[in-house]
């Protein structure tokens, strides 16, 4: 096994990096891959909460780097999926506790024993971001269909291109097809037009994502959730499978079903 190191980054905060890492990791692990997540947000750790592993943290990534424990000891196994691990960030330190070469070293150590290493990048384009992309084989840039988020994604893509991290792919998160139809939200085409990179997934706006994050049970576990389906599709595409994009217009709501029954659609 040689793991693919995938970093998820956005520039802007609050667009769903951590949520995406947790969901994609659960989807990958549920489909049989061995996945190690690394929380790159030293000082503001969240991934452990979203993955529901907060109360199991003993050692963190800074302990590994500073030699207080072995890498294995800092890898927390998920409660349900035996092939899913988290290396948490330190909460009491800051980004300077880790350097780009530390990240490379840790990823190289994991590489032989896993299929995927997912790194959750902090917001911003400073040290923490540099650490998160240092070891990456691939970078997924995540953005919302909002002008400010797209602007920051553009900046991040520019830096990735300058650093010759080849072909970042785009996740468009929290798209609301109804708002797009009313021309109140940027459409997927608008965003892709500006950013000019390959799309790897569109995640529709879905309240169950927030509920899942708070409970520590990512929504990609829920077979009924449309956002969960979108994250599962991204996981399959990461594995190199060709999955068609979901039809976001199909709301599947009560009114649609009534209309379908009435033969109006």
């Amino acid at each position, binding site marked *: 096994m040689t793991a693919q190191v995938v970093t998820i980054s956005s520039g802007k905060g609050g667009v769903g990096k951590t949520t995406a890492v947790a969901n994609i990791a659960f989807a990958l692990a549920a489909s049989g891959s061995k996945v190690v997540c690394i929380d790159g947000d030293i000082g503001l750790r969240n991934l452990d909460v979203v993955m529901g592993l907060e109360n199991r943290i003993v050692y963190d990534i800074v302990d590994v780097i500073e030699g207080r424990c072995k890498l294995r000891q800092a890898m927390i196994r998920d409660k349900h999926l035996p092939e899913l691990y988290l290396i948490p960030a330190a909460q009491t330190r800051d980004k300077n506790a880790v*350097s780009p*070469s530390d990240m490379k070293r840790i990823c190289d150590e994991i590489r032989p024993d896993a299929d995927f290493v997912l790194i959750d990048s902090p917001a911003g384009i400073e040290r923490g971001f540099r650490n998160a992309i240092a070891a990456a084989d691939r970078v997924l840039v995540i953005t919302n269909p909002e002008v400010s988020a797209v*602007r920051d994604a*553009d900046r991040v*893509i520019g*830096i990735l291109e*300058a650093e010759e991290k080849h072909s970042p792919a785009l996740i468009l998160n929290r798209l609301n097809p109804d708002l797009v139809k009313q021309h109140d939200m940027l459409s997927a085409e608008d965003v892709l037009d500006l950013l000019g990179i390959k799309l790897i997934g569109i995640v529709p706006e879905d309240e169950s994502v927030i509920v899942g994050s708070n409970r520590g049970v990512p929504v990609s576990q829920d077979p009924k959730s449309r956002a969960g389906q979108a994250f599962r599709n991204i996981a399959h595409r990461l594995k190199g499978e060709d999955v068609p994009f979901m039809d976001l217009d199909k709301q599947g709501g009560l009114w649609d079903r009534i209309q379908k029954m009435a033969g109006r659609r």
Partner: protein
Amino acid sequence: MNDLHSLIQIKGLRDGLLVSLSEAPWADQQSALLTQMDEQPSFFQGARLALDVGTQILHVNEVVDLRDQLSERNVVLWAILSESPITEQTAQLLGLATRISKPRPEETRFASSDPNEETALFINKTLRSGTRIEFPGHVVVLGDVNPGAEIIAVGSIIIWGRLRGAVHAGSNGDKSAKVCALDFAPMQLRIAKEAANVNDARETASPRMAFIRDERVVIESWKPS
């Protein structure tokens, strides 16, 4: 030791350290610099470094490598001064300064003596948010200029693509400078000292050219003649 010191010169500036490199191969100079840092870590701790690389051509991976090495020694690479446009472009891409407070005397190094042989910078890619291109001549972009990107040219600016960012042509006051783009919708537009009202231009996308007529910026649609 003497060998190392003849390769690089370090002197203090008001806002950091200026390291001047010689013409020796890049790898030798880089290791000379890092060796010197490891010998006197306390002198370099927390320093901001400006690198004068002379005529050396540096590519992105070389600069990134150096920057990472420096950051592990708690030193910030802040600027790269160069006489090569390629290296300057590299530095700009990485968000490093290419000039320090005291401007270098050879400011006119790109300008040719013959006005008919003016130089232009050709950029064969999309300029994304956060990129700033400053050039003492014309600038030609084959690609888009996204919102948040800036081009400041002493001469004209020609964009074969979408213009969505900020552009300033004729930045030294040259009123004959022009700005053209296939899809002309800049965030901000200035020619010489005149700013243009670009709100109208942003309504519809089409090829346009902006120039100065009677002290005002005029934006005209391009029609094949």
